[in-house]
């Protein structure tokens, strides 16, 4: 591991919306291709940020979660380490192409997966308040489209009619439906559904063959984004982060269910890197999870639902590698409700910064139109300046 040039901890003052703009367009609507691409990896189940990026410099870490902390973590600086499953991510950090934002969360503290998942995708002020997603609204404002690598159209991308999805099929006795058949059937449907059905016709013409694992889908997404007329956003889901039991293997915190899933995330990021090619330079990849997990282990070598977690960021649009955190500490009285990592950074601000950087929208517009919160703090400079 090369020596990294990271601050011990980059402190971030998360105040009111910053007045400072960083040379990006101030208008809400971009013309033509925006400055970059935004790619979201949804980590379903609630990812344990304290295991993915363990705060090894925190004096309380080993006394509280020795059993959950990987032995072979890669040191990032004298305070934070990186889970050994995140090998490619570690290389990116060494090259200044990856960052982490720690002790962060959407402002949701009730620990329900399904409320939390709805909130982090919908980006509204409360669970189930939105019928569209924050990324969908961002793309609608920017007038550009995104693609989900899934069978369904996830909430996060709803809200812009040009957004589409892609997921390879394998059905014996069937072929890719012919475009004219699809178009004729679409004509029999109501107009909003017909619009969706006609996207099938577009795909029929493209005739793409892609394996179905998340890393291959990420590579495909990267390639699509690299094309001149391709989408500028993508969404991939990685499941099974709900590590109530056997989060780590007995006696080996380097392996276990979490280690396996983090390796998938690492492969997805690597897949994006390969697929994006030169488009990597203006891309951002960010993870999104509904909550972190309890600071202490539960009775079944796992962790229960918590609050603060970590966000992993990668892409050439990052100017340098940082661990951005306003570290709350792990002592009992530092914990949220005496059980969870406190969140000191609103992750909506991180999403807003990524939208600002890649879609060229103004922060105040993002805050008010996308997240319905005009005073959402701007953290752009901590990540992108």
């Amino acid at each position, binding site marked *: 591991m090369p020596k990294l040039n990271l601050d011990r901890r980059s402190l971030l003052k998360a105040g009111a919306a910053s007045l400072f703009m960083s040379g990006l367009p101030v208008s809400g609507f971009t013309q033509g291709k925006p400055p970059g691409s935004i790619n979201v990896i949804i980590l379903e189940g609630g990812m344990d940020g304290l295991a993915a990026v363990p705060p090894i410099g925190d004096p309380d870490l080993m006394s509280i979660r020795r059993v959950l902390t990987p032995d072979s973590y890669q040191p990032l600086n004298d305070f934070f380490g990186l889970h050994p499953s995140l090998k490619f991510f570690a290389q990116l950090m060494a090259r200044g192409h990856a960052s982490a934002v720690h002790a962060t969360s959407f402002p949701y503290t009730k620990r329900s997966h399904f409320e939390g998942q709805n909130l982090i995708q919908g980006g509204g002020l409360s669970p189930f308040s939105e019928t569209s997603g924050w990324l969908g609204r961002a793309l609608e404002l920017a007038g550009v489209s995104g693609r989900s690598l*899934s069978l369904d159209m996830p909430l996060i991308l709803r809200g812009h009619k040009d957004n589409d999805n892609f997921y390879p099929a394998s059905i014996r006795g069937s072929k890719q439906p012919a475009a004219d058949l699809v178009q004729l059937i679409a004509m029999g449907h109501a107009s909003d559904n017909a619009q969706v059905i006609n996207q099938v016709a577009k795909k029929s013409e493209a005739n793409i063959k892609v394996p179905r694992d998340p890393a291959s889908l990420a590579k495909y997404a990267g390639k699509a984004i690299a094309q001149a007329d391709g989408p500028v956003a993508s969404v991939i889901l990685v499941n099974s982060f709900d590590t109530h039991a056997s989060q780590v293997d007995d006696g080996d915190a380097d392996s276990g269910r979490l280690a396996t899933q983090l390796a998938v995330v690492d492969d997805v990021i690597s897949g994006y890197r390969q697929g994006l090619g030169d488009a990597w330079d203006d891309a951002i990849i960010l993870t999104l999870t509904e909550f972190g997990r309890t600071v202490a282990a539960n009775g079944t070598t796992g962790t229960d639902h918590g609050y603060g977690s970590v966000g992993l960021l990668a892409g050439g649009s990052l100017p340098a590698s940082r661990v951005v955190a306003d570290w709350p500490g792990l002592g009992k009285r530092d914990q949220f409700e005496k059980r969870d990592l406190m969140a000191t950074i609103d992750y909506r601000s991180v999403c807003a910064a990524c939208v600002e950087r890649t879609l060229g929208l103004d922060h105040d517009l993002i805050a008010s139109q996308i997240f319905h919160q005009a005073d959402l703090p701007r953290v752009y400079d901590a990540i992108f300046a």
Partner: protein
Amino acid sequence: MHESFRIAQKTGLMFRYDQAMPEDMQGWVVQQLQAESPAIGIANIYSTAEEWPAELQPNLAKRSAMWRQFRQLKKQQREGKNGQDNEAAVQANRKANLLRDTDELKFVHRNVYGADQVKLRLAAFWANHFTIGNTFDTSNMIGHAIDEGIIAKLNGSFADMLYGITTHPGMLTYLDNVWSAGERSEKAKDCNRRIDCHAGLNDNLGRELLELHSVSPAAGYNEDDIHSAAKVLAGWGIDFGEDVARMRKLTGGNNHWDAYKKRWQEPGSKTVMGKRIYAGKKGLRQLTDFLALHEHTIDYIATKLCRHFISNQPSSEEVQAVKQVWRDTNGDLLAIHTKVLDLAIASPEVKFLWPMTWLFQVVRLSGATFFQGWEQRHDYSNDLMRTQKVFKELGQSFWSERQPNGYSDDPAEWMSAEMFERRLRFAHAIYENGRVRRSTSKIMDRIGANPATRQLVASLGMSPRDQFVALMCSPELMGLENA
């Protein structure tokens, strides 16, 4: 669409291509709730429908023994012992001891060949409400939970169903409860004396019991309530592969559906949402009975039933009517279901069909043979996909790895280009490989397809296959638009 088919589409699985039509539809729906529910299926693709053989429907003790055997042979495979270390032995072990393929095929056969279509729709609703995802270690239990925990209890009280499913080994395994021990239990005390032992609470099932299975977050419970529910649950369930002698020692019996490990229980009474729950095994029944008649449970599940069967946005009058029946009958499911179905018939609104429901309806209407017989459940076919694969491609299966909140009733979750493409492809595959027994025009005449649907089919030209695909993917047959 004729009224009889509109009702069957909304509340059932459609009348099979050769089935006689009932005269009194409203009466038929009510009779359906009382129908016998034998597992009907086919032995092979050329045979006629009959009841599934008993030996393919093992009880829990047998299922547990199979799981135990599976794990033993797998261990031998890992250690390279007893000639188990080869692909043939690995496959033989799966076929002999894992029940996923068998159970899933039986569920499909019920839905394709069963004469109890309305009950099966209700069974799907509740199997989804009480989702037991496939975490592999639940392989041998999901089918049993659906048969004995849901279908067998459809006409009882909600309290019985809630208690039954909460204590079913499938649920206790899926949501990690089999490993959860009270923090002050005998087990935890023993463990604390050793360094290689972890024992303590796991709140997974306690949380979902409140959030998903009963009162929902609208009830405003807090973290202490969840923790207390987990304490009530501590001790329930045991590893499905545990040997019989040890199970007897830990639970005092050999019944997996009533397995309570006293030494793992949390001593003392608990309070959940203001309700005092006594210590010991009987505490759980006290808790589920309290939850089953809680006003928030009634509101949450009555609304969910209305949204599943009546319309995407049921009126408050409709929901109130179902809630009132729930209160008046102390949660009698037969009465509740009767009310929901009456309202579904009375409402002109359409419901966009779930992919699996749509697939069953397409197969029944056309008389296709799209699934293998039980004798063929492990065979490869050039034409017919394995059941598991069909549902994986369709994006919906009760045997998939999935989250405990189950599948949504929101049409937005099911409308995307890829989702629609799958329906086109399956209609195509059913026509190509499923030996359909009725022509598209015959099917349209029988169901009374509306003029828009006929026009759509006509626009496809002369290809019988394209006409079939167009009919099955029309707004009318997908439950998207009114006739």
